[in-house]
């Protein structure tokens, strides 16, 4: 067109055909590039929002929950007077058990008052009764258990770590302040000053709280003693049940459906229903479990076996879908190769297809299990929300004993009045998240190990 020698012959540029230099972008290219840049920006924004939400979630849980792993305790010598704890004088635990926790609470009170006298701590306006109230009621129960387990301690002085009550603990974690204590009927500023003095003398301090992971739940009045022991065991037992039932059933069902079943209307129907089953709200499975496993089959309430069965029902569709996808992803040439050398259908599946599908199956299974671990709603309906203080015994009998579960324990604690339980619930969420991260890590490791190229 710019060719001056052939002005008449120069044809008009065809539409959609660039006539200009390659060094300048035409309008169309500019518009396309702009669209691409916009799309990238949207993507980056979406990822950013997701990351911010995640970080926010983690920060709020960590800031609320990490303190649950440390607990305020008083370390002091406790004299165990024989005349009060063992009237008969024969160190027989059966007879000694007649002394209730009230008796041991008195012993602790005396020990604290003796400690204050020894260290010269005197708080104005603080009665002896009020002073001893900074000790948790649970501390007496713990001391009683310790003495009954070892009666020879009676008559001696033992060094004890004594739980303080939840308000004192809260004072050192920022929940309780002098100002709020003025208004609180459960704690007085004088008690807080006593705690400060004990802390200054080094007898009261925050220590790592293993009891949070090992001890059972405690009542509403004793948040300082509440632990996750029963819930962790219950969740573990349920996962065992889920693993033992759902993996063989799910994998076998998907192998059959994918490799052996005839493709007809009936199998199509099954396929659609499995997909639907994966989308059924979990609470519906809970009602089903209540009706079938408890009311009809007569299995015990609150037991991990029932929870495990309900979660198995929920997990099977997830496992089947993941396993079928993994089996489908195995190239058909491998099946042909196996059949071509005269392997039977089953040999071709078990020798060649299944090993190649293994990473996908394992990942799907572990994701299904992780989902089951965090499931709460169906467990509420089958009674796992009960207050359980006794540890279930070892499996297999233990799966029939009442237990709690981690997510239900979180739910349970968030329902309670004392603000100290908010910290406990956040701590329990951290424990749950740690378990989930561990399971996902296992999934990744197994995936790496089994992954093969073809």
């Amino acid at each position, binding site marked *: 067109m710019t060719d001056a020698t052939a002005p008449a012959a120069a044809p008009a540029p065809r539409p959609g055909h660039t006539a200009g230099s390659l060094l300048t972008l035409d309008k169309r290219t500019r518009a396309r590039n702009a669209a691409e840049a916009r799309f990238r920006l949207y993507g980056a924004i979406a990822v950013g929002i997701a990351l911010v939400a995640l970080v926010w979630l983690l920060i709020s849980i960590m800031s609320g929950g990490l303190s649950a792993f440390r607990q305020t305790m008083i370390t002091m010598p406790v004299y165990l007077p024989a005349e009060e704890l063992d009237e008969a004088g024969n160190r027989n635990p059966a007879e000694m058990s007649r002394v209730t926790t009230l008796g041991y609470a008195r012993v602790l009170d005396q020990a604290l008052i003796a400690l204050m006298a020894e260290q010269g701590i005197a708080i104005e306006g603080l009665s002896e009764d009020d002073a001893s109230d900074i000790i948790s009621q649970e501390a007496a129960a713990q001391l009683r258990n310790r003495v009954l387990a070892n009666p020879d301690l009676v008559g001696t002085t033992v060094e004890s770590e004594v739980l303080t009550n939840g308000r004192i603990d809260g004072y050192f974690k920022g929940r309780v302040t002098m100002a709020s204590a003025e208004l609180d009927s459960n704690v007085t500023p004088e008690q807080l000053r006593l705690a400060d003095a004990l802390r200054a003398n080094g007898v009261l301090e925050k220590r790592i709280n293993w009891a949070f992971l090992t001890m059972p739940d405690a009542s509403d009045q004793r948040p300082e003693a509440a632990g996750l022991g029963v819930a962790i065991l219950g969740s573990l037992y349920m996962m065992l049940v889920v693993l033992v039932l759902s993996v063989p059933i799910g994998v076998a069902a998907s192998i059959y459906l994918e490799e052996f079943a005839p493709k007809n209307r009936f199998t199509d129907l099954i396929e659609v229903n499995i997909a639907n089953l994966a989308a059924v709200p979990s609470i519906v499975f809970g009602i089903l479990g209540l009706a079938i496993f408890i009311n009809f089959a007569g299995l015990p309430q609150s037991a991990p076996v029932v929870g495990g069965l309900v979660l198995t029902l929920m997990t099977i569709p997830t496992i089947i879908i993941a396993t079928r996808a993994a089996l489908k992803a195995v190239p058909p040439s*491998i*099946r042909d190769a196996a059949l*071509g*050398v*005269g392997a*039977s259908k089953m040999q071709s599946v078990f020798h060649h297809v299944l090993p190649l599908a293994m990473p996908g199956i394992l990942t799907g299974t572990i994701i299904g299990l992780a989902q089951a671990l965090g499931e709460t709603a169906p467990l509420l309906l089958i009674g796992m929300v009960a207050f359980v203080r006794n540890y279930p015994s070892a499996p297999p009998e233990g799966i029939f004993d009442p237990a709690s579960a981690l997510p239900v324990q979180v739910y349970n604690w968030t329902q309670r009045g004392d603000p100290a339980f908010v910290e406990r619930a956040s701590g329990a969420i951290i424990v749950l998240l740690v378990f989930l991260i561990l399971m996902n890590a296992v999934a990744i490791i197994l995936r790496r190990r089994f992954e093969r190229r073809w």
Partner: protein
Amino acid sequence: MNDMRLVERDVDATDIKIKARNVQVYYGASHAIKDVDVDILDKTVTAFIGPSGCGKSTFLRCLNRMNDTIDIARIEGQILLDGEDIYDKRVDPVQLRAKVGMVFQKPNPFPKSIYDNVAYGPKIHGLTRSKAELDEVVEKSLRRAALWGEVKDRLDKPGTGLSGGQQQRLCIARAVATSPEVLLMDEPCSALDPIATAQVEELIDELKQNFSVVIVTHSMQQAARVSQRTAFFHLGNLVEYGETGQIFTNPSDPRTESYITGRIG
């Protein structure tokens, strides 16, 4: 086609290994193979040629019942292997496939070691009694596939790590390890470069001393080079079947001639 050897070559074996009569194959409603009659000779290389979609691969897959794995495929007629109907109800396709081995278009070694690839067939058919015997079979099969020299020091390495041509020869070794009587090859060289193709063709020529080889190929030159007998398929019909030399030099059907001279296909 200009290979002078092909006219000199004559067919010495005359035993019929596979006899197909009135074979019809349907994929759902479409009629893929119509009325095919073929006699495949023992210790001979038979080539199936024809344009794409003419049914030559479909027919090949009938010979070891690989079409059974396709739900909508339906086969009628009779295919006799040594006089026995392979579509008889009493025949287990697994046992049949041990006798009629197959090599596929794309090299498809198992994602296992080279050794395990070759040893798999003998293992599942219980052909060997001891590890030493199995080692022997593996070595013999790899030698037959002209691969032994290249892989003997790395038998425990994955078979998928070999080059394309080596992989295809590994698949041939795997197929011959079960000592089949017939070896079906579905375009075995289509994924290979000319050098690897030459190696495989040489191999086919040697294999015919022990097996009856049926090869599907798109390349007429290849058919002319390796086969003694050639069958030309067109639109599901077997148009012409005869000695390779005669098909390529003096076809009796005009369609064969058009295909060979490149006018259709």
